[in-house]
């Protein structure tokens, strides 16, 4: 990274890899599903309680084509797998505070150990030590996040230019949006009356080239026993990159005239429906369904002018991404101080305790 920062050629292999890495970090869509009803304990609208934990594994398949001026286009492909662990720190009917950690990262298909050949991978592994804490409201919106800057500092190591670059390429809003995805897919209070469809607004980072504001419409496609299939369609609108602040930024290149078009944005998911409330429950809580899995496909094309060293050149790009997230079977619920939950209230994913 140092070489390209010093030379200001940020739209380079490494720089773009950083962008893409950040992008896929940011673009990971995580969803989870657990529906247990303990009305007598402090729990969230999803039935989560303090010390409950679950993890979500996401596989990200990417292909990016970049062409600078009249040079030959370069196609980059990769497939990564990332696992995040969520642990409930505090649970109330109006707020859920969750601690999130990266617990696994694998580069699929490459020979050798994922962590042996790249400084990037090593730094990513260090992120395990930096938990991020998020506050989630009843609509699944992350209202506060701690640990964002610390995580980027951990990733950048002693390289301050790298840190500045990460802060630019990975805005807090996108980071927050990504880390809170498990709650993001839940229907909100304001959704369609029949509960059959709902809308979610999100932000995907495109690194130094800005981002995309996506509006996803989720609709129940079919329902069977305690689960339902979800169809997702949506639109995306470009968010322009902020102008280059030459005093604050280590890079000497900037992207102008950025035009990004979302060619497609669609997906499908699986949702677990809450089980019936216990008959003798004095204070039944209306629990929301959870998603057990999600696959999102999106593709964009675009162009921009990259300015570097007094020179302006046209760059065109295409990006296709498929990401699949699955709740892992290691869900732990009903820990102290609330005790174990009745077996009848456990979802199929929930192991007996």
């Amino acid at each position, binding site marked *: 990274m140092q070489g390209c920062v010093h030379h200001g050629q940020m739209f*380079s292999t490494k720089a773009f890899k950083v962008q893409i890495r950040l992008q896929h970090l940011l673009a990971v869509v995580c969803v989870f599903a657990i529906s247990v009803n303990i009305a007598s304990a402090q729990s969230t609208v999803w039935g989560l309680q303090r010390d409950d934990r679950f993890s979500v594994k996401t596989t990200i398949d990417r292909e990016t084509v970049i062409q*600078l001026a009249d040079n030959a286009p370069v196609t980059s*492909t990769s497939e990564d797998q990332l696992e995040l662990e969520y642990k409930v720190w505090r649970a109330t009917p109006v707020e859920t505070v969750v601690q999130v950690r990266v617990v696994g990262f694998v580069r699929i298909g490459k020979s050798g150990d994922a962590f042996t050949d790249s400084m990037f991978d090593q730094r990513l592994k260090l992120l395990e030590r930096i938990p991020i804490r998020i506050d989630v409201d009843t609509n699944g919106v992350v209202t506060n996040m701690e640990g964002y800057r610390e995580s980027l500092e951990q990733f950048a190591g002693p390289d301050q230019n790298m840190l500045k670059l990460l802060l630019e390429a990975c805005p807090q809003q996108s980071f927050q949006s990504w880390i809170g995805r498990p709650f993001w897919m839940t229907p909100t209070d304001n959704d369609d009356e029949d509960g059959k469809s709902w809308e979610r607004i999100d932000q995907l980072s495109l690194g130094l080239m800005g981002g995309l504001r996506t509006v996803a419409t989720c609709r129940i496609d079919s329902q069977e026993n305690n689960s339902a299939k979800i169809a997702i369609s949506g639109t995306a609108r470009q968010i322009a990159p902020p102008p280059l602040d030459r005093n604050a930024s280590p890079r000497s290149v900037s992207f102008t005239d950025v035009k990004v078009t979302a060619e497609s944005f669609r997906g499908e998911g699986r949702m677990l429906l809450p089980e019936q409330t216990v008959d003798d429950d004095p204070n039944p809580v209306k629990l929301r369904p959870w998603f057990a899995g999600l696959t999102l496909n999106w593709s964009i094309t675009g162009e921009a002018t990259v300015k570097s060293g007094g020179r302006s050149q046209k760059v065109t790009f295409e990006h296709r991404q498929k990401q699949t997230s699955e709740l892992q079977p290691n869900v732990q619920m009903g820990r102290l101080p609330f005790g174990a939950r009745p077996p009848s209230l456990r979802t199929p994913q929930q192991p007996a305790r």
Partner: protein
Amino acid sequence: MAVRMELSRVIVSEINDQQAIYLKEVDGVRKFPILVGEFEAGIINRRLLEEPPFRPLTHDLLRLAIESLGGEPLEVVVTEMKDHIYFAVLKVKQKDQILEIDCRPSDAVALSVHFNPPLPIFVAEEVLDEVS
């Protein structure tokens, strides 16, 4: 007889260890891929995206060495294919001599993009007939 080609695409895959470059006929439609190593693909990619290294890398060193020794690189030619392995030569003019230096096509193409304009790339007609 050699056919003028151009570098038309670079594939950098993190999914497997083999990367590829595509050469396309300048005055025609024939094209074919050559599998290259990760390092060479990275070097070519770096050049195409115009990212100069902080310090000279191997192909920069080679270019500087040729120039410092009074050589004038002329072109690269993929001359033959044996057992699915391509062979190439780098043609360098030194004084009144034209030297043909044996090299791998991946190195030849990587070196070609280190010059501005890039060195012309040729492929022997018989090779092109066989692979395109």
